[in-house]
């Protein structure tokens, strides 16, 4: 119980009044002659027990009346005995992230969490509205029975999920329901990485049940990268494990095992290979099974084939030529006419890396070349302002001379970097277009250490043959596929149409990007590495992370159960207390008047 105006509790001191009156009766000073005192004495002697009871009853009624009035003035809010709870909008957030698949005491944590969620649903009544929200973003509403069945069916999600978004969504549901009672209950394993940011849910009461026991020890593969992304055909896989001790591992490409051994915590695990098969291949790095199976394997994808043959335009400057030489030495590219690299005005055909002209006087020729090649972009008027380039792998890159890229009708391409709010590097079908010449007087990109690897990846993924990008995503996470990709092919060969705006698949693995019948890339879906860290957040810290009113965070299932619908069952007790005070006053009046009435009647 709580009080909205607790200062009024000072009125409790007024109980001294009836007590004083009760005691004062023994100190009467008014003396009156009354000859029939003998009758009075006999009456008191014969009725002493009844009189004592009556006096005590009157004192109790008067004290209780004062207490009830004082409590009512303090405007109490609390549970009303026997009143159940008001119709409540209840959203149950069930943490089904990968970490809840850990086996503890012979069963997955998720089974325990599901039972608690069912307990919460069982406490609801037919007047409540109930939803189930899982951290993978699934929302189930409808009848209470439907929600119970959804809880029982909830399976482990292969990734980290987003408990913050789930709670925010749950709060939105209960607020939108328009019922008097609102409550969000959360059942979670309290994984620290899942609760790494504060969650604000407004004034919706929230009750969180977490786990206090130490998490099981976990082994996980947290990194599995093919290097380079395109094997020509040689390449390597570099993996890393997170281990409390040591464990055996295996690196496989397709059906072929590339390496086996014993892994130690933080140690790079490298497997070099020269596969004989060509095309897009999937691979996996896996550990011996432990209590959390979901992160014992980590997937990767690689394109295996001949090195793309490139020919840099000598007029493009020394920096491009030097970078290509470095790639030639690494055998990541070969000399040939397959891919052209150079200023746009000197390129004869696609695929090509098209650079802005070094001289503004060649702008017209460059745009005519773009038009001739069918590239839906044009170079704009040159701008000589120092601009920071923004984009993946371009942190800190500056552009001092740029020809802002202007999209033409039907332009369908990926913007890889921007400068001054305009596209700076765009990629499309068979072309990559850079808005500045690769010259230090125009941009410091060619001076950057990341330039050569970036150039190799661009040639391998964007320009060489049918190869496109390798994308990475968490299960169910957002994914932006390259232009023209219309389907995903899973590891077992099943092809699923992909619509724009859809999320990544919810199961970990490699999904090949399909453009018609052709594989043009791969989407690698792995759980977030941080999901393998099962460290749990202390209850006090978890409570601090929840920014809301009346947040209950506990590891005690019984206490948590008691807190459910607590807010729904709390209501203003002012009126009942006022009624109680009036009833007590009426009872006191009846007791007092009873004697007077009987006397008068007699």
């Amino acid at each position: 119980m709580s009080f909205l105006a607790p200062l009024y509790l000072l009125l409790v001191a007024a109980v001294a009044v009836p007590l004083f009156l009760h005691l004062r009766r023994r100190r009467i000073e008014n003396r009156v002659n009354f000859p029939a005192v003998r009758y009075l004495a006999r009456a008191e002697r014969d009725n002493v027990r009844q009189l004592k009871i009556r006096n005590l009853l009157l004192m109790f009624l008067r004290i209780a009346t004062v207490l009830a009035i004082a409590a009512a003035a303090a405007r109490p809010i609390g549970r009303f005995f026997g009143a159940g709870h008001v119709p409540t909008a209840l959203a149950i957030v069930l943490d089904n992230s990968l970490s809840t698949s850990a086996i503890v005491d012979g069963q997955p944590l998720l089974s325990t969490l599901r039972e608690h969620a069912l307990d919460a649903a069982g406490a609801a009544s037919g007047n409540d509205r109930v939803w189930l929200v899982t951290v993978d973003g699934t929302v189930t509403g409808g009848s209470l029975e439907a929600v119970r069945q959804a809880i029982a069916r909830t399976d482990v999600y292969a990734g980290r999920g987003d408990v913050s978004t789930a709670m925010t969504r749950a709060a939105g549901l209960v607020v939108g329901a328009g019922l008097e009672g609102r409550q969000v209950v959360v059942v979670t394993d309290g994984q620290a990485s899942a609760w790494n940011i504060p969650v604000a849910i407004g004034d919706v009461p929230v009750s969180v049940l977490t786990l206090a026991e130490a998490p099981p020890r976990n082994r996980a593969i947290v990194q599995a990268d093919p290097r380079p992304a395109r094997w020509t055909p040689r390449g390597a896989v570099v993996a890393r494990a997170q281990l409390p001790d040591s464990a055996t591992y295996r690196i496989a490409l397709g059906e072929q095992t590339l390496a086996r051994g014993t892994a130690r915590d933080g140690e790079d695990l490298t497997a070099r290979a020269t596969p004989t098969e060509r095309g897009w291949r999937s691979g996996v790095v896996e550990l011996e099974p432990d209590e959390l199976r979901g992160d014992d394997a980590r997937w990767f994808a690689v394109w295996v084939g001949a090195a793309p043959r490139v020919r840099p335009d000598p007029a493009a400057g020394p920096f491009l030529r030097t970078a290509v030489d470095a790639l030639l030495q690494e055998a990541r590219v070969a000399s040939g006419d397959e891919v052209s690299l150079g200023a746009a005005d000197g390129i004869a055909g696609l695929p090509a890396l098209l650079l802005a002209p070094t001289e503004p006087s060649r702008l017209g020729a460059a745009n005519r070349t773009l038009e001739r090649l069918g590239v839906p972009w044009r170079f704009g008027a040159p701008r000589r302002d120092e601009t920071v380039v923004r984009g993946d792998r371009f942190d800190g890159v500056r552009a001092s001379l740029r020809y802002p890229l202007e999209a033409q009708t039907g332009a369908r391409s990926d913007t890889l970097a921007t400068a001054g709010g305009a596209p700076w590097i765009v990629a499309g079908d068979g072309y990559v277009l850079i808005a500045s010449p690769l010259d230090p007087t125009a941009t410091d990109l060619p001076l950057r250490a990341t330039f050569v690897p970036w150039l190799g990846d661009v040639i391998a993924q964007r320009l060489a043959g049918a190869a496109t990008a390798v994308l990475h995503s968490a299960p169910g996470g957002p994914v932006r596929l390259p232009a023209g990709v219309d389907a995903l092919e899973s590891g077992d060969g099943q092809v699923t149409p992909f619509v724009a705006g859809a999320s990544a698949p919810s199961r970990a693995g490699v999904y090949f990007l399909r453009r018609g019948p052709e594989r043009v890339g791969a989407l690698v879906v792995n759980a977030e590495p941080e999901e393998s860290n099962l460290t749990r957040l202390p209850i006090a810290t978890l409570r601090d992370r929840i920014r809301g009113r009346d947040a209950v965070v506990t590891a005690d299932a019984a206490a948590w159960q008691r807190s459910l619908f607590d807010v729904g069952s709390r209501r203003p007790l002012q009126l009942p207390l006022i009624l109680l005070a009036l009833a007590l006053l009426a009872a006191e009046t009846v007791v007092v008047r009873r004697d007077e009435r009987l006397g008068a009647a007699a």
Partner: protein
Amino acid sequence: MARADKWMVKQFEEETNMRAAIVLDVSDSMHWTGAPTRLTKLAYAEQIVASLALLLIRQKDAVGLVRYDDSLRSVIPPKARNVQFRRIIKALEDGGSGKDSDMSAALLQAGKLVSRPGLVVLVSDLLVDEEATLNAIKVVRAGGHGVTVLHIMDPSERDFDVSPEAIFVDPEQNVALPATAAEVREAYRSTVEHAIAEWRSKLAALGVGYEVVFTDSPFGVPLRRAFASRQRLP
């Protein structure tokens, strides 16, 4: 038919020739009234005594008076003369207000005053020793006298409406008792009714007439009721 051969009507006035003694309690408790607008119990009782004495004298009965408190204050032997009434009235003006009521002595004295079987009328609030009083009445009854008791009560002694809350003091016994009227009124009323019933029962067992007279009612009514069984009285 008389000698004149005429119808005649003779009218006689009956003389009962009874000897009566009125015993009046003038103790301190009789000097009390529950409301200023009412007579004290003693003043009311004196009116009853005077009325009764006048009635008895007018029918040629001898009537005497014994006034008492903690001792005998006045003793007037029964006489049937008209001057007797003035003696009684004068005696009523005498003092009293003793701290106690020695009713036994007064009753025995009254029994002695009435030489042959007659009537003893006790006018008192009966706030006395009950056993001693009943014993005295037995002695008087053994002398062949009829006894009638007029129990004088102030209405406040019945209703207990003197004060809402006070220390109630018995003026004779000097006993003090704190009480709140609202709390004990019911029990008090019950006790008073029980006491009246006890007096009525025990006096009836002795063949003694008993009537409760409240000072807020016309005294003719209780007098008529008290003496209704005695044919000689009007």
